[in-house]
C-alpha cells in the first residue's frame, strides 16, 4: 500500500551511526536486552500483518521503566526513530520496524504489579497479556472487560495503542473506557502520569488522546485498568436467517427493543461454511446468515433478556432459534465465531481482514456492494461482523504467491474501506491504521484535519521520531495518492455527513 521511502518527509534519518547507537545503548541496557546482529533481528521483522516486513537497526528489550527512559533519551539525542512493540499481534502493521530506527520491545515488562479488589483496579506492566489480567482477577470474582479475539496473546500496551475492542464492546466499551491511568514517557524521556486513580483527571483528557494513538505520541510503561464483577450468568441465542438483509434488520430490532446485549455478532454463509469444516460448532449451514446474541448479568436479568431477545428474533423472521442450554453449549456457539479467521485461512493460504465500521442501517447496502466487488475482483470474501457496533470484518481470501491475486486483494480491500467512508463510516474500527490503511486516511480526512493531527504529533514529538510513516499520512502522500485515485477530488456523496 505504498512504501514510506517514496515519501521523503516520512523518512527520518538518525544523526548517529548504528555503531554509535549500539555503543550508547549497551551502556544502559543489560547484554541480553540489546540485539543488533542481523540473525537476531530477523524474528522482529513484522507483526501480525505479515505481508509487510522490515529489519530494524537494533532491538532493545528493556527490563524496567528506567531503562526505557534511558533508551529514549539516547534515541532522542541521536534522532533515532523508535517503534515500540507489545506482543506483535497487531493486524495493521503498527509495530512494523523502521529500517533506520530502533525497535523497542516491551515484552520483558510482564508483571501484574497490583490488584486492588475493593477499588476494582489492576496496575500492570505494558507487556502483560490481556487474558492474564482477567486470569489474575478471577480469584476476586473480577475481570477485565475488553477481549479482542487475540486476548490470549496480545499485550495490554498494544490494546492501549490501538484502543482495542472485542465482542463485548457494545455493552462494556473499548480500551479507552476501561483504563484510568497511564505512566507515559514522551520521546525525549519525560515521564508523566495521564489520568489517575479517580475517574477523571485535571486539564485536558490526555488519557483519551493517548489511547489509540498507535505509538506515535509516547511510550506507555504502566497501565491501571478497571476491573468489573464477573457476571453470574451468560447465555447466548443463535438465530438463523434465510436472507442476510433480514438478519441485518434483526440487529436494529434488538436495539430498538431497548436491549443492549453483551455481544451481538453476525456471520454470513461463507463464514459459517468455513468454520463448520474446522470446528463443528453446529451452525445451520443452509442459513444465509446467523446471529449470535449474548446476554449476561444476574440470573434474573439474563432470563428476562433472553426471553425478550427470542421474541424479537422470531418477529424478525428467524428460521431457527437455539438458546444455549449450558456453558458447554454457549462456548460451542462462540467457538465458531472465534475460529472464523483461522478457518478462512484453511480455504486459501492468505486473507486480508478488513476492519471498517458503518452505521448499522447501511449494513444491507454494504453487504450487497461487497458481494458485487467480489465478482469484480474475482476473489472470495467471507463476512463476520461485530453487528451491534456496525464493525465489519470482511475476510478477503487470496494466494499471496500469485502477484496478480495479491494486487487484486489489496484493491478489493481498499474499495471496501472507501465504501465504508462513503456510507458515513470509518476505515478502521479497532485494528488501527498502521501502514495498512494509511492511504485510505486520505479518503477519510481532509487537509485541515490532517494538519490538526500533525500539530498534535508535533506537541508530543517535535522531530517525528516515534513510529514514522504510520497512522497519519503526510500531505505529500495524500497528494500523490489522490492523483492516482479516481474517487479523490470529487465528493461522491456531498450530502452524506463525512464524520
Amino acid at each position, binding site marked *: 500500500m505504498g512504501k514510506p521511502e517514496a515519501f521523503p518527509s516520512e523518512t527520518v534519518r538518525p544523526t548517529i551511526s548504528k555503531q554509535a547507537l549500539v555503543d550508547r545503548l549497551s551502556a544502559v541496557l543489560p547484554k541480553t536486552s540489546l540485539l543488533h546482529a542481523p540473525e537476531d533481528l530477523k524474528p522482529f521483522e513484522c507483526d501480525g500483518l505479515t505481508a509487510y516486513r522490515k529489519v530494524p537497526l537494533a532491538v532493545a528489550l528493556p527490563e524496567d521503566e528506567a531503562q526505557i527512559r534511558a533508551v529514549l533519551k539516547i534515541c532522542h539525542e541521536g534522532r533515532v526513530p523508535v517503534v515500540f512493540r507489545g506482543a506483535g499481534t497487531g493486524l495493521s502493521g503498527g509495530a512494523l520496524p523502521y529500517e533506520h530506527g530502533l525497535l523497542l520491545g516491551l515484552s520483558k515488562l510482564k508483571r501484574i504489579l497490583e490488584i486492588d479488589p475493593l477499588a476494582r483496579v489492576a496496575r500492570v506492566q505494558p507487556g502483560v497479556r490481556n487474558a492474564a489480567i482477567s486470569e489474575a482477577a478471577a480469584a476476586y470474582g473480577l475481570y477485565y472487560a475488553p477481549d479482542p479475539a487475540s486476548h490470549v496473546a496480545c499485550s495490554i500496551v498494544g490494546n492501549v495503542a490501538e484502543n482495542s475492542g472485542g465482542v463485548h464492546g457494545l455493552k462494556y466499551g473499548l480500551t479507552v473506557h476501561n483504563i484510568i491511568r497511564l505512566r507515559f514517557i514522551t520521546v525525549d524521556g519525560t515521564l508523566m502520569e495521564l489520568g489517575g486513580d479517580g475517574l477523571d483527571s485535571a486539564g485536558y483528557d490526555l488519557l483519551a488522546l493517548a489511547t489509540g494513538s498507535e505509538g506515535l505520541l509516547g511510550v506507555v510503561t504502566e497501565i491501571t485498568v478497571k476491573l468489573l464483577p464477573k457476571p453470574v450468568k451468560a447465555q447466548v441465542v443463535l438465530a438463523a436467517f434465510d436472507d442476510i438483509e433480514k438478519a441485518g434488520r434483526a440487529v436494529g430490532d434488538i436495539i430498538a427493543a431497548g436491549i443492549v446485549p453483551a455481544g451481538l455478532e453476525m456471520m454470513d454463509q461463507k463464514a459459517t461454511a468455513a468454520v463448520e469444516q474446522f470446528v463443528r460448532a453446529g451452525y445451520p449451514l443452509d442459513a444465509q446468515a446467523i446471529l449470535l446474541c449474548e446476554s449476561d448479568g444476574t440470573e434474573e436479568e439474563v432470563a428476562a433478556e433472553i426471553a425478550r431477545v427470542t421474541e424479537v428474533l422470531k418477529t424478525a423472521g428467524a428460521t431457527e432459534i437455539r438458546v444455549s442450554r449450558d456453558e458447554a453449549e454457549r462456548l460451542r456457539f462462540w467457538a465458531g465465531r472465534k475460529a472464523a479467521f483461522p478457518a478462512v485461512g484453511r480455504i486459501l493460504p492468505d486473507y486480508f481482514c478488513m476492519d471498517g465500521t458503518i452505521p448499522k442501517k447501511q449494513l444491507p447496502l454494504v453487504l450487497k456492494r461487497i458481494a458485487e466487488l467480489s465478482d469484480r475482483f474475482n476473489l472470495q470474501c467471507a463476512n463476520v461482523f461485530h453487528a451491534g457496533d456496525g464493525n465489519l470484518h470482511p475476510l478477503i481470501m487470496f494466494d499471496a504467491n500469485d502477484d496478480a491475486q495479491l494486487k487484486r486483494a489489496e484493491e478489493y480491500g481498499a474499495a471496501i474501506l472507501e465504501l465504508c467512508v462513503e456510507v458515513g463510516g470509518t476505515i478502521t474500527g479497532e485494528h488501527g491504521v498502521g501502514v495498512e*490503511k494509511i492511504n485510505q486516511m486520505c479518503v477519510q480526512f481532509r487537509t485541515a484535519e490532517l494538519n490538526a493531527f500533525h500539530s498534535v504529533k508535533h506537541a508530543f514529538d517535535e522531530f517525528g521520531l516515534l513510529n514514522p510513516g504510520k497512522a497519519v499520512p503526510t500531505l505529500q502522500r495524500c497528494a500523490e495518492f489522490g492523483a492516482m485515485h479516481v474517487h479523490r477530488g470529487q465528493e461522491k456523496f456531498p450530502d452524506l455527513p463525512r464524520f
Partner: protein
Amino acid sequence: MSETIQPFQEQIKAAAATRRPLRIRGSGSKDFYGVRLEGEILDTRAHTGIVEYEPTELVLTARAGTPLAEIEHALAQRGQMLAFEPPHFGDGATFGGCIAAGFSGPRRAAAGAARDFVLGVRMLNAAGEDLRFGGQVMKNVAGYDLSRLMAGSFGTLGLLLEISVKVLPRPQRERTLRLAMTEEKAIEQVNRWAGEPLPISATCLVDGAVYVRLSGAEPAVEAARARIGGDDVEDAGFWRTVREQAHPFFASADNLWRLSIRSTVGPLNLGPTLIEWNGSLRWVAAALSPKKVHEMAQKAGGHATLFRAQDKSGGIQQFSPELLALHKRLKQALDPEGLFGPGRIHPEF
C-alpha cells in the same frame, strides 16, 4: 433552527485579525466554573437542532446550541437517554456546553463519563476551518481521538458545531434505597457492592446515610433490593438535586471543592462532605488551603478542583510541571494564537 456556520467563521476570523480572544458560550450555565472568563462572547445558541437521531443506531447528532433539555426530551420519547446523566446547572444549558464542560452526573461510575459517549465532533479551529473528527459509529480508531479531547476542554481548543454521542435505552425500572451509615463504613460498603454483579446505577453518601439507586429489569432490581436492604426512597427528585447541586448540602457552599480520587480512600475529614461515584468523587463544602487539598488529593491517587469559589485567581487545579508543559504545547498546537478562552482552565494557557 440555523444551519449556517458562516457567522461563526467571520467572528473567529475577525477576532484572529485583531488578536482579541473569544469566549465561547451557550447559555452561560457553567460561567461559574474556571479560573477566569476572558474575551468577546461567541454565542452558540443560534446554531440549533438535532441533525440526526436514529434510535436503532444508538447515536444522536445535534448542533452545539441545541438546548440540552430538548435533546433529553427527544431521547425520552424513544425510551433512550444520555447515560452520563449530565448536570445542567441552569435552565438554558446547551448540548455544546454539556460536552465542552464534560461534566457527568450520578450514573457516571456505572455507565461512563461524557467523554466516554462522544463519538465525533464537527468543529471550527482558530483559522475558522470546518473540521470533523471521529464519526457517528461506535468504533473508530482512524486518527487521534480529538473528539474525546474536546470533552472537558471548555471551548479552549476550538468551537464545537455538532457533536455525535452514543445513547442508551432507559432502564425499565429504577428504585432508590436509603441506609443509615457512617462515612467510613459507607465508603467500604459501596465499594463492596460495586464489586458484586448488582444493578447499581448510582450511590451517594450525605447526611449520615447512603442512597443507592438500582436500575434495570424489574426482577433484577427487586432481587438486588432484597440483597441490599434499607428503606425505599419514594422521592424521585433526590438524584436530580444531587446532579444539579440543588441538594441542601450545596446551598451554603461558597467554596466547593471537588476531589476525584481512588474510591476506597477513607474519610478525608476536610469538612462537610458529599460522596458520589462509589467513593471516587468527594464534594467538600469548606474554604480550605489549596495547597493542602491538592496534596491530599494527590496522595489519594487523584486530583482536586476548586469547583465554586469567589476567588479562583490562583487556579482551580494543580498540574505537575511536565503535564503543564505538555498542556501548553497542545494548546499552542491547536490554537496557536491563544484565541479561545485563555485562562479558563489554567492561569497559564
